């Protein structure tokens, strides 16, 4: 049997160009779509759609965001709260921080309400009433942008 000499092996170099091309394209894509805004979204909340819901022209200055899930739980500052009283005490602490450490009035602070489309309207009203008790006045009811007319399908 003839044995091939081992020392004669040539170096095989893979062509890296397509891989680098693809990687740069991926980086370009992610750079284009990246969003550093601290938009408070929660996947547990499915917002109701509206063709008139448009993003605000200017971002709110230090807004408070309250989520309401379909099963009636409140989500505030990352904590899921099952009772309105707990939400109230959390908001009360927030008001004390705002009044002590900022020059803002509570009436100028926007409360963003992200309520699930199947949540009870009464609970949304209770959130608003609780905030009103604490002297908040500005509310933003958040909805999902829709291309289709939502009032003609009801």
């Amino acid at each position: 049997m003839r044995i091939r000499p081992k020392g004669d092996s040539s170096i095989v170099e893979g062509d890296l160009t397509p891989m680098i091309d693809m990687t740069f394209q991926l980086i370009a894509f992610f750079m284009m779509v990246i969003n550093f805004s601290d938009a408070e979204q929660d996947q547990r909340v499915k917002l109701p759609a509206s063709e008139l819901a448009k993003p605000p022209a200017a971002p709110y200055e230090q807004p408070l965001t309250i989520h309401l899930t379909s099963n009636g739980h409140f989500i505030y500052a990352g904590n899921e709260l099952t009772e309105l009283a707990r939400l109230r005490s959390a908001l009360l602490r927030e008001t004390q921080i705002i009044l002590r450490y900022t020059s803002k009035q509570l009436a100028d602070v926007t409360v963003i309400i992200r309520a699930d489309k199947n949540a009870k309207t009464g609970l949304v009203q209770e959130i608003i009433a609780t905030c009103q008790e604490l002297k908040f006045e500005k509310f933003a009811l958040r909805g999902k942008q829709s291309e289709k007319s939502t009032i003609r399908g009801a």
Partner: protein
Amino acid sequence: MKIRNTEHRETVVLQMTPMIDIVFQLLVFFVFTFKIVLPEGDFNIRMPSASASQTSQPSETPLLKVRLRATPTGELARVQLGDVVLDGSTPFAQLNQEIRNLVGDSGGPGSTEQEVEIEADYDLKYRYAMNAITAITGYVDDNGEQHKLVERVRFAPLPQ
């Protein structure tokens, strides 16, 4: 004069490894920081507490009341504008038309002092309340242009 042999050149090999390393690190950073942000929008309402609003000047235009009645399961049972029951197949489209007739909309920008109060049943699903707010605050015409109707919308106080 001695002429240098030009055929014997050193081949310059570019080191690709550091570049590929950094490119992959960038890629991993972007992949991990990527989050899908759904397009969302707001309806801004100003609702001072009942005691604060009593001290303000009362509006000259009468307050319009929209009542939303719910079935026991929270579905929409009936829409009412004042005493008029909107009982068609698309009650919110009807409501929108009624509001347009009331505020005298002619396709121009809305600038009315009219205030609308929504009185909804406690168990009503929120999407119907959002539909009512949409119907009251404006509409999108066939050209995709937005028109505003009533900007002052509020919820009726909850019954004690």
